[in-house]
């Protein structure tokens, strides 16, 4: 029960912050709200017993990406403030589409998971009501010991290829970002 309350609070914060990100005109402020939203997500990770990921979320998203974004905003916003109307100008199309999308995702994705353990999966179409035995029903399945060592092992054993690939991607991104962003001094 406590978990649920915590979840509701965190989820509310995350979603409201996210909403602020996409709605409020001042872009610097929306970047700040973005950080809040990221933090909320990190909290959700903790709720899900993914401490390592939560840490990463805070470090990378809040610590790196948000800061990067803020730098970029400051760099490009010579006309700081709200002089240029930053708010959505096509909200009338964006809003219904987003609502439709939300409805789509909830109907098609959320509905089947409403009662994952009861064996009465409800789906809008004629999905077979087969018990899905690969969904755990309680928290003890989520290892009481931390997941971090396991993640570490997986990363370096079976997932070594993506791991190395990620480094290559980062290198490429780095090089690319530098090449694109740097001023030509000639």
């Amino acid at each position: 029960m406590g978990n649920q309350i915590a979840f509701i609070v965190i989820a509310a914060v995350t979603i409201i912050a996210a909403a602020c990100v996409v709605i409020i005109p001042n872009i610097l402020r929306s970047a700040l709200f973005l950080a809040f939203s990221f933090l909320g997500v990190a909290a959700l990770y903790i709720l899900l017993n993914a401490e390592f990921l939560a840490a990463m979320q805070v470090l990378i998203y809040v610590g790196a990406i948000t800061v990067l974004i803020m730098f970029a905003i400051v760099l490009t916003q010579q006309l700081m403030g709200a002089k240029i109307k930053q708010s959505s100008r096509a909200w009338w199309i964006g809003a219904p589409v987003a609502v439709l999308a939300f409805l789509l995702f909830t109907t098609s994705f959320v509905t089947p998971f409403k009662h994952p353990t009861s064996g009465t999966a409800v789906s809008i179409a004629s999905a077979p009501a087969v018990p899905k035995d690969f969904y755990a029903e309680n928290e003890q399945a989520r290892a009481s010991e931390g997941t971090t060592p396991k993640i570490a092992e997986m990363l370096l054993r079976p997932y070594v290829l993506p791991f190395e690939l990620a480094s290559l991607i980062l290198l490429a991104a780095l090089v690319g970002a530098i090449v694109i962003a740097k001023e030509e001094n000639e």
Partner: protein
Amino acid sequence: MDLSQLIKDSTAMICVAPVLMLTVAGLLVLMFGVIADRFPKGKLNHWMPPEYLSIAVMVPMVIFGFAALRSAILRPETLRLFPVGGQPGSPLPAYLIQFDPLAMFLSLAAIIGTLVVVVMSLEYFGDHNQRNRGEYFALLIFATVAAILLACSTDLLMIYLSIEFLSLASYVLAAYWKDDPKSSEAGMKYFLFGALSSALMLYGMSMLYGLTNTTNLAQIASTLASGQALSTPAALTAVILVLAGIGYKLALVPFHMWAPDTYEGAPTPITAWLSVASKAAGLAVAARFLLTAVPMRSDVDWYTIILVLSAVSMTLGNMVAITQKNIKRMLAYSSIAQVGYMLIGLLAAAASHNNPANFGLAGLLIYAASYLFMNLGAFAVVIAVERKTGSSDLAAYVGLMKRSPFLAASMVVFFLSLAGMPPTAGFLGKLYVFAGAIQTGQKDLLILAIIAVANSVISVYYYFNVVRLMFMNEGEAKSPIGLSKPLRATIILMLILTFAICLAAGPVVSLAKASVIL
């Protein structure tokens, strides 16, 4: 296969050689470029410009690519690497990547495309942008690595990583010509649209994972087939979302919106690269994802979706291409249309339940190979004209026959091929995909084939609109257009291959037929 076993197995080594060597080569070119840029008085750049180095490293890559394809075909079993657990309790093994003939075939296409693009870049940049060329070529090579990995991926994670890798490199390359605001704009649009698409795809992947408890394609398929998945309608939505990401790579309607702007704005060699190499990888992943993760099922009815999108793609692409005033933009729409044709092959393969006797998948491969050469040839001509006139507008092509008969005639051949007229490569490609469609004997595919042939007639209209400008409008007398030796050689090579694929179709057909295993 384990890594230790891998080292002992020479054919397996040959299979992985291209991707490994390309990575090394990319790093080499990158380092060399960085050093050369800082070398006193640019002496190193003068002595060994990065483009020549890139050519030097890419030529063996083509050979490696061929060797890899050959060994992938000859291997009794497909080389699969990096086993992961995947779904608990699943009897199917889960691997991250596999080096099968289909992937190797399309990888080879990507490698050849890269080589040609490198040569074209040589001409395109010329004296411009002396610095940072090492990075440019390195990124190009990295992008090729990403393309190959994408073609080989058998896991959602790997697909996501490879697509992102490919995209990131492509964004940078599209925005590479910093002097040109169009290039920056192209990069930005490409980036924003690409990020959206990959987010959509990622969301879909996450749902697929949730529904099947695995990210391995084969296991997803078996789970869906066993009815263990929680909800197949949800799976369909997830598949549609994943298709958004793949469709974006293919420039398939309605995920094509980036293509015209990016094609127009990006440096022309990059446009060429995007249209062939990137698309080849996209085709590979489309085939693999659709055919292995969600094989033909009535409940996960991606077949109908692709059928519709294919038809819409070619119709829209061809129709809008008619009104274009810029040749790169026109070729962008043309490439949107071409994807529609290629997907017919995929659909035929799906409709025949991956029967290797079906012409569809082989058709897709042949079409991709044909498209590689004819489109690169066309872009090579575009580059030659752009170099001289500084424009890629159709107006620059008025009276091209007078200015350079060679370029004009070559362009006609490439356009004929793009339109699917014999005796050029495009004809063989079309013949094969249509054959695949007809072979299934399904009415919907027949209708699609009819739409496709009707579209190929429309396409002649705009291709020959350019031909008309080149040959029938005299224009005011203008200076002839010279042509550098590498570019001329490239065009001649593309011409030869464009004809050869139809007139000496044997090797390509054999290769493609042998490569339909995935």
